[in-house]
């Protein structure tokens, strides 16, 4: 029952005030929403409202290289006006960590440049987008797809490839009274040359052996292993380091170390550039460094030696382009990576940075390559190069190999015994 007395005494003025306050708050909220919508829709003009924005993380930070990448992106954008590409630069020192953290925080970029040995780690865990459907038309055009394939599906497009060859100092060899007749040499010839150059004096070293540097040392040993017919993992997926081929390669590598110096890659490169190192197993970047820092250096390159003097198998490294599994615009992103990886566009980047090759069988018809004997030999070696097995736990396997080689270099065990231990450790990693 309504109590009339109470009803009359009630302070209706307060109630009206409350009512108007609520109404006012409602208007403010509605205006805020409308204003936000207007801002978000109209910020870039009506033509931008349908624009696709792609986030691209890449490693080319050198000013010249970055300028080329930027120019390639501008070309892509002019051909695809509906697509905008935002670039974030990474460094090799911390780029891997940043990518992993981006994935783990659920905010990865759309497109990522990945080192060839990183791809399995990402593809095997479902972090990359299956681009099999987008790559059917370019599969014959490119080589070295293997690191980008997992479970029969394609996850990354090869972009720029490089390999390692042996640089030799011609003046030091002349002083030591040795020479190479050909670009392919046998183990014995090469060891003899290292021994002779190493004997030239205290400040001259023969073979440049890498010290324990993670992700580097194994790349120097594996070519000798492969060239001797050895394998880290056999076709059955089992560890196969404890083999006669691996033993001969390991013993040979340790003999080379005896006639040389152990140092970091950058120091070995520096020593070679300054003419104090006879033989340096290095990549295409050294060509540019020599050109920039000591163009007078009298040097040549040979392919990886083998026991019988044929061309050996070297280590191939490369940059690959992949899409993250969370990429919102896979078609546009796939268009972009196919554009960047196009051999002509890749060749533009290679020429700027001074090394590397498009991922094609044919050497580009360009004086940059065809008029440089050393680059042509690099390409020959590239076609006879391999990448490490695409295994998600490769980072652990390479560490075992590096520790084995390091122990051998510091005489902490017999080669056969060290190989056996390494095989056991790799088996544990493969079977866990």
């Amino acid at each position: 029952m309504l109590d009339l007395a109470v009803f009359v005494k009630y302070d209706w003025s307060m109630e009206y005030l409350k009512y108007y306050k609520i109404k006012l708050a409602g208007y403010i909220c509605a205006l805020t929403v409308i204003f936000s919508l207007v801002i978000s829709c109209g910020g870039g003009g009506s033509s931008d409202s349908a624009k696709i924005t792609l986030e691209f993380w890449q490693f080319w930070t050198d000013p010249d290289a970055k300028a080329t990448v930027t120019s390639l992106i501008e070309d892509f954008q002019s051909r695809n006006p509906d697509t905008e590409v935002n670039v974030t630069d990474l460094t090799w020192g911390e780029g891997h960590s940043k990518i992993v953290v981006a994935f783990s925080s659920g905010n990865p970029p759309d497109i990522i440049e990945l080192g060839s040995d990183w791809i399995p780690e990402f593809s095997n865990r479902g972090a990359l987008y299956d681009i099999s459907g987008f790559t059917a038309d370019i599969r014959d055009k490119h080589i070295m797809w293997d690191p980008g394939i997992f479970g029969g599906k394609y996850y990354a497009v090869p972009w720029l490839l490089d390999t390692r060859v042996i640089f030799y100092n011609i003046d030091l060899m002349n002083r030591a009274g040795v020479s190479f007749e050909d670009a392919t040499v046998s183990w014995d010839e090469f060891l003899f040359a290292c021994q002779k150059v190493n004997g030239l004096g205290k400040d001259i070293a023969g073979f440049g052996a890498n010290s324990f540097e993670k992700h580097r040392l194994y790349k120097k040993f594996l070519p000798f292993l492969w060239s001797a017919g050895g394998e880290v993992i056999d076709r059955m997926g089992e560890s196969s380091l404890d083999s006669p081929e691996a033993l001969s390669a390991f013993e040979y590598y340790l003999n080379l170390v005896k006639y040389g110096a152990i140092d970091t890659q950058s120091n070995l490169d520096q020593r070679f550039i300054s003419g104090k190192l006879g033989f340096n197993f290095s990549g295409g970047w050294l060509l540019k460094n020599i050109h920039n820092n000591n163009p007078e250096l009298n040097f040549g390159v040979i392919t990886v030696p083998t026991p019988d003097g044929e061309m050996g198998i070297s280590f191939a490294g490369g940059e690959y382009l992949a899409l993250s599994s969370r990429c919102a615009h896979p078609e546009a992103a796939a268009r972009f990576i196919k554009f960047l990886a196009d051999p002509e566009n890749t060749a533009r980047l290679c020429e700027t940075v001074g090394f590397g090759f498009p991922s094609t069988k044919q050497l580009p018809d360009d004086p940059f390559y065809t008029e440089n004997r050393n680059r042509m030999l690099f390409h020959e070696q590239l076609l006879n190069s391999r990448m490490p097995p695409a295994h998600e736990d490769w980072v652990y396997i390479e560490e075992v190999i590096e520790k084995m080689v390091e122990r051998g270099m510091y005489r902490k065990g017999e080669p056969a015994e060290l190989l056996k231990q390494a095989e056991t450790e790799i088996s544990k990693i493969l079977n866990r």
Partner: protein
Amino acid sequence: MFPLLYSLYLSFFAVDILSGTFKFIGIANYVNLFSDGDFLTALKNTTIFVVGTIPFTTILALIAALAVNARLPGASFFKPALVMPSITSMVVMALIFTHLYSPNGYVGALLNLCGIPVPENGLLLSEKTALTSIMVMDILIAFGYYMLLYLAALQNIPRNLYEAAELDGAGAWEKFRYVTLPHLKPITLFILVINTIRSFQIFVEIFVMTKGGPLNSTLTAVYFVYDVGFVKFDMGYASAAAYILFIIIALFSALQMKYFGGREART
């Protein structure tokens, strides 16, 4: 607080950061660490580093502070000169020392002049000299900062205590032994605790100069945590290793408080 607790939580899981899977494994990470040769080597190297640097750093800092406080000739030059390395970026200092320790570096040349054999590939590429070289570098860089702390404490000792001691016939040694040292006890405790924590956390020097090599001879606990956590991204295992290190540092600090602390230290 959240990172601290979350790290403890992670240490009981096998974490795959990329796929976002967390598998509870109880104390398996902790158990595995105590049979992990690399982790045990890292703990051994870290302990050698802590025990081998702290006494030298502390004593050098005290001697330098006494010399500067006594206003010996050249003190005004040496005070900033000794402090300079400790306020310079550790990365820069580590790079400078990497060159000094290289096969053609000044340190090797100096040792050769003194008839001390130097490893063929330089001091940092021999497992016998790498850790010692980094320890020497660390002492030389760090003691200037602790010298400043000692200097401040020395200048706070009332002068009348020294005058009273002189009236009682005390010589220089007695004044140092019975006046200076007791007044330096609190700051010494502070230096020991701070330096212990800092030394257990040695990372930058290793990261820049040796990456834990050669033959794990410079692998330290924090570098191990970094390698497991941010190279292999095994966050559960790295968290467990970090917690073991945390407990060790806490124990060391408690022991120092017990044996070097006292009523004076808390006043």
